[in-house]
């Protein structure tokens, strides 16, 4: 128990101090430089520039069809960019075929060779490198141990469960010790529980091997869990690149705010904006809204206020300080989820049905029957 705790703390410390993207002197390992990819008339990737640093766990996040896989395939060498460059360790990859790139990919479908055993699948990469036989056997054993499949070495892929196949695919792509591992929706085919476990295993693995991982996912929780930084994409365009906490706390656009987690959106007018203090007015509440966030805005501008449900407090009685940051509304629905409850609150003037979460403290559901009047307040 004690050692586990210590280990978590060191990882935490390492993770916190790991931020090469803030260091202007650091050179990126992978650089997408104004990359465009068109399929005929259709633009799948539209002027994307990303820098990814060594030892980083980087996630490409976006809805299905937004161009994540296409971007990754350009790094692996299966697609050539229409415009722009892809650089690996400063070297332009244009014209370098996939079999000469020190980058391995774990495919969404796993793409295990069905006519080879687990051990042969894993040995395939090292064999292509011309490694001596004895060394290959050692490497295969090491990989099997890494993914805990020692007993399955002689099985064929169709004799394995989905989770085991996923591990074989991972072991196979790691066996050549590539500089970069690309993972295309690696956990998409697993059930929720196994997926969550595997996310943490991937994080540990990436830390232990000290490798650079680039993961593609449409699951925002997965990206938030595993990644050092997340790139949010939409329709082939890069929307925001930032660490998970920044993406969550300070989303760059309405799209990001809406895509990541639950959020309430309110249209507001900017009253004043000075030294990171923004005053807003909204038609849904007479009280002024004050927020402390450094955004550039001019008085009179229309702004969208995004409030996370868990940052709101709900009370039956009017709060003591009604002068700012509070709303009144009617509770319509209460969803009890165990660790928290979801309240659907309708604000006056027919405007948005708002969500607030509640955990702890609040009396049980039975005490009030909706709809009844209360005063949700937030700060």
């Amino acid at each position, binding site marked *: 128990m004690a050692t586990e705790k210590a280990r978590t703390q060191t990882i935490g410390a390492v993770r916190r101090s790991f931020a090469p993207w803030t260091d202007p002197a650091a050179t990126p390992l992978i650089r997408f430089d104004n990359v465009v990819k068109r399929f005929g008339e259709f633009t799948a990737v539209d002027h994307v520039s990303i820098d990814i640093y060594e030892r980083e766990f980087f996630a490409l996040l976006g809805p299905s069809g937004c161009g994540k896989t296409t971007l990754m395939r350009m790094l*692996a*060498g*299966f697609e050539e960019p229409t415009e722009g460059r892809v650089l690996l360790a400063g070297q332009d990859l244009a014209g370098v*075929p*996939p*079999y*000469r790139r020190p*980058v*391995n*990919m774990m*495919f*969404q*479908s796993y*793409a*295990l*060779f*069905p*006519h080879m055993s687990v051990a042969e699948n894993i040995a*395939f*990469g090292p064999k*292509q*490198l011309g490694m001596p036989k004895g060394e290959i056997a050692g490497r295969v054993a090491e990989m099997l141990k890494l993914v805990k499949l020692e007993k399955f070495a002689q*099985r*064929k892929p*169709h*004799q*394995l*469960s989905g989770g085991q196949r996923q591990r074989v695919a991972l072991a*196979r*792509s790691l066996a*050549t010790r590539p500089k970069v591992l690309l993972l295309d929706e690696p956990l998409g085919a697993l059930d929720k529980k196994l997926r969550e476990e595997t996310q943490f295993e991937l994080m540990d693995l990436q830390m232990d091997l000290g490798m650079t991982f680039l993961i593609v996912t449409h699951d925002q929780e997965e990206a938030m869990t595993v990644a050092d930084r997340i790139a949010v994409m939409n329709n082939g365009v890069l929307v925001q690149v930032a660490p998970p906490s920044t993406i969550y706390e300070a989303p760059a656009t309405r799209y990001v705010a809406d895509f990541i987690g639950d959020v309430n959106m309110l249209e507001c007018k900017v009253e004043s904006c000075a030294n990171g203090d923004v005053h807003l007015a909204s038609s849904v509440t007479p009280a002024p809204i004050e927020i402390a966030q450094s955004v550039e805005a001019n008085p009179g501008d229309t702004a969208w206020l995004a409030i996370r449900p868990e940052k709101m407090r709900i009370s039956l009685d009017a709060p003591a300080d009604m002068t700012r940051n509070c709303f009144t509304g009617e509770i319509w629905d209460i969803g009890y989820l165990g660790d928290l409850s979801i309240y659907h609150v309708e604000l006056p003037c027919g405007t948005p049905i708002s969500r607030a979460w509640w955990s702890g403290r609040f009396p049980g559901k039975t005490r009030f029957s909706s709809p009844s009047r209360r005063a949700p307040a937030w700060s």
Partner: protein
Amino acid sequence: MNKNLSWFNVTSLALGFAFLYIPILLLVIYSFNASRLVTVWAGFSFQWYVSLFQNEQLIDAAWVTLRVAFISSLVATVLGTMAALALTRYGRFFGRTLFSGMTYAPLVMPEVITGLSLLLLFVAVGFERGFWTITLAHITFTLCFVAVVVQSRLVTFDRSLEEAALDLGCPPFKTFFTITLPLILPAVLSGFMLAFTLSLDDLVIASFTTGPGATTLPMRIYSQVRLGVTPEINAACSILIGVVTVAVIIASIATKRAEKLRASEERAAARG
């Protein structure tokens, strides 16, 4: 299972089998006839089989047929597989529609036309007609059958398997031989079998493209039958039927067994 076996089904099944197999059965029975007269039964005898193996003309023809069939189906399998790869893989290349149309044309082209046009070509080029012209002609007309069989396998082939091999550092040529070919091999083999049997029993195209000194078994049988059916021919045909039947039975048992093995392996995997 027997529920659907109404009298109608039984009758049509019986009729179908009767049409298919009564002539063949008759042929086999009469090959053991002691009489020289084909239609008069005069007791059981192996004599026609003995004389068959002393009939050098028939033995020669059989030998020519086997060599033509083997060489032509081998070459047709290689070329047909390559054509199928080109047609499925290189999505849009210049003249794709024309190329695919041209690959399939011999499937529906009357054999007489294929034979005649090949004959004209060989004459125009000044090729000496014989064994090699038959072989070339058989390559031409069996190639498209191989292409069709292999192509139907390739359209369901998961391309990410090849990409995975490339990704792991395996060059394209080697990828084809270590990943693609082993996986499409059943289709390639059945393409080969198809080409082999098509070549084996072709009469029309061989007749057009042959020259002196190269007579295939179907040609020899046909020319002898015109002079009257001899029990020797019956014996030759019975042997052919026997060979084909044994081959088909072996092939189907082998596939069944492979399937069963795979199914039991999968069940074992499901158990954990």
